[in-house]
């Protein structure tokens, strides 16, 4: 199984990674090459995912958060293409043979990559209805994942594992659920089944792409609570992609705010919510309803610019209330705002 290269020969395995980082994304660039131009959906995105923590990625539709997640798993389909960057994964404890070290997922052969997909990094998607195959039972779909990533199990053990993960995600009557087809379950149960498929792969990192967007509010809370509990119990890291700042406030340890394919602000959840530095982050927070909100909610005027025709300078200039001449001429870099907090702004909030 592991290592992917010829045995005894270190292959694309860099020296030991620093302390407890499971995943490091460096300068990731994913572009979509269409007839209407090149869309820079993910443009120079870097972040790290510490072991056992939740990283929240927030942004509007089209900000590049889902494409970032798909790029990590190399699931971007044409005309999208990963054109640069590295996705470094710590290999400690992938399997018993695993050497200590890191590997760049973007340089792996497709067959090697498949071991990481699901096995190391699993992903769950927004629409539990359409993300489950309608013609196979829930049990079949989980068992397939178990069979792929725990090859040592026999059929009976695999089935036991299926029931085990169904119990983990708190599906009542796992035996029956395993024999059900997706359409026979409610939305919340389907999302639990999706999570069960992901868990069947025994991942160390779970990417949840808008896991609750399609669900009722009460069910949303249950699913989020379940994700938190599973992360703690199984010691997983969670990348939580959402447009809902409320979800991020409750769940995430660290927050990444994306806008037009770029990270505009990054920091701990406390930093982001109490001291947002980027005008976009501040505007997003002001658009959140609170107990004290009276009258109309604040909105951000305008809309996300087309990724094929971004203006010169800062991508947020058209919607920013602090815009100045410099913003229209120069593209700001991510600038350190405090310990662990960065923002892409020349004139940050203080």
């Amino acid at each position, binding site marked *: 199984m592991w290592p992917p290269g010829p045995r005894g020969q270190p292959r694309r395995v860099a020296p030991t990674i620093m302390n407890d980082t499971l995943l490091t994304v460096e300068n990731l660039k994913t572009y979509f090459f269409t007839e209407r131009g090149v869309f820079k959906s993910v443009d120079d995105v870097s972040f790290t995912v510490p072991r056992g923590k939740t990283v929240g990625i927030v942004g509007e539709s089209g900000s590049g958060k889902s494409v970032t997640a798909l790029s990590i798993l190399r699931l971007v389909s044409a005309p999208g293409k990963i054109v640069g960057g590295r996705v470094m994964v710590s290999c400690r404890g992938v399997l018993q043979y695993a050497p200590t070290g890191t590997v760049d997922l973007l340089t792996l052969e497709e067959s090697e990559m498949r071991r990481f*997909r699901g096995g190391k990094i699993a992903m769950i998607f927004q629409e539990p209805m359409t*993300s489950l195959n309608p013609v196979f039972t829930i049990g079949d779909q989980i068992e397939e994942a178990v069979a792929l990533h725990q090859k040592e199990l026999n059929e009976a053990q695999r089935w036991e594992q299926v029931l085990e993960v169904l119990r983990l995600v708190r599906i009542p009557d796992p035996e029956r659920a395993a024999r059900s087809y997706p359409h026979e379950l409610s939305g919340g149960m389907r999302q639990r089944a999706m999570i069960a498929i992901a868990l069947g792969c025994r991942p160390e990192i779970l990417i949840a792409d808008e896991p609750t967007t399609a669900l009722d509010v009460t069910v949303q809370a249950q699913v989020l609570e379940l994700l938190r509990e599973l992360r703690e119990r199984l010691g997983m890291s969670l990348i939580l992609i959402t447009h809902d700042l409320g979800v991020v406030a409750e769940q995430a340890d660290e927050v990444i705010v994306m806008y037009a394919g770029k990270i505009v602000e990054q920091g701990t959840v406390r930093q982001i919510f109490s001291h947002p530095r980027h005008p976009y982050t501040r505007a997003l927070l002001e658009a959140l309803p609170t107990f004290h909100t009276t009258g109309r909610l604040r909105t951000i005027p305008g809309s996300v610019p087309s990724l094929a025709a971004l203006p010169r300078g800062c991508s947020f200039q058209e919607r920013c209330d602090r815009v100045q001449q410099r913003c229209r001429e120069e593209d700001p870099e991510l600038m350190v705002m405090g310990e662990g907090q960065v923002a892409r702004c020349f004139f940050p909030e203080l």
Partner: protein
Amino acid sequence: MGVYLFKRLLLIIPTFLGITLITFLIIQMAPGSPVSLKIQQMGGEGIRTETVSKAVIEQTKKLYGLDQPIHVQYLQWIKRLATFNFGDSYKDHRPVLTKIREALPVTLLLNFISIFLIYLISIPLGIFSALKSRTLLDQAVTVILFILYSLPSFWVAMILIIYLGGGEYLNLFPVAGISSQGVGELTRWGQFGNVLWHLVLPIIVLTYGGFAFLARLSRAQLLEVIRQDYIRTARAKGLSESAVILKHALRNSLIPLITLSGTLLPAMIGGSVVVEQIFSIPGMGKLGFEAVLSRDYPTVMAIAAIEALLTLVGILVSDLMYVWVDPRISFEGM
């Protein structure tokens, strides 16, 4: 499920009666009748038709029951149908049922092989096209399929006969009938081989145009399914591309193709008229065609009735197949 099936079977009865009634009226209204044809024949035999007295005509009509009002004739036909008595052919006075019993297996053999071949070739071709979609190969396949689709079958049949069936060129295949003379003296396998040898050209003509439709359909289906979210889920699990396509995508994309097969059989029995006629194959198509030409009402009606029944059963079967292949569909509560 049981209740549903019972309802559907009950519904077949009025539909079937409707179809046969319309067929009955149409053939009765069509110009020409068995009586006038008979008189023409007599003319051919040297008897002066003008001298055939009205009495003879009346006598012939009476013999066939054609003197009675049309609704009475239809009711009598239904009455006989209830006892599976299709009457005797006007043409050679043999029981229609015997004639059909001879013809049906030939047509069924011909069409089963054709349908099987069409599916066997179209589906992999469609998958191939979908996986190579928008490449030169995919476009080449499309062009070839449409060229085949647009070639008229009688023309292709003639070309095959001229070039492969003797004449001035190759003499590889027989061009008429379904077995050689004296085939009975061969072994069982020898007979089987002889029949297959005779069927090669007819089957080519029946299949070549069928690829286009099914291959395009399976290509479109697969392309549609590949875009679905659950395919992404399957990939995210770490499945290999071939497992993603062959297991997750294929099963979903084949649903309409499997269910379609139920309605194909009656369509193909109707469609093999031309081929059977050209290759002198004594099947249902040839029997029906000749019966229509000779105003052989009992044979025409029997064939119409059988094909109506096959069509109705075929539709029912394809509906039932939906339940079988697609777990989302059930007949509970219908």
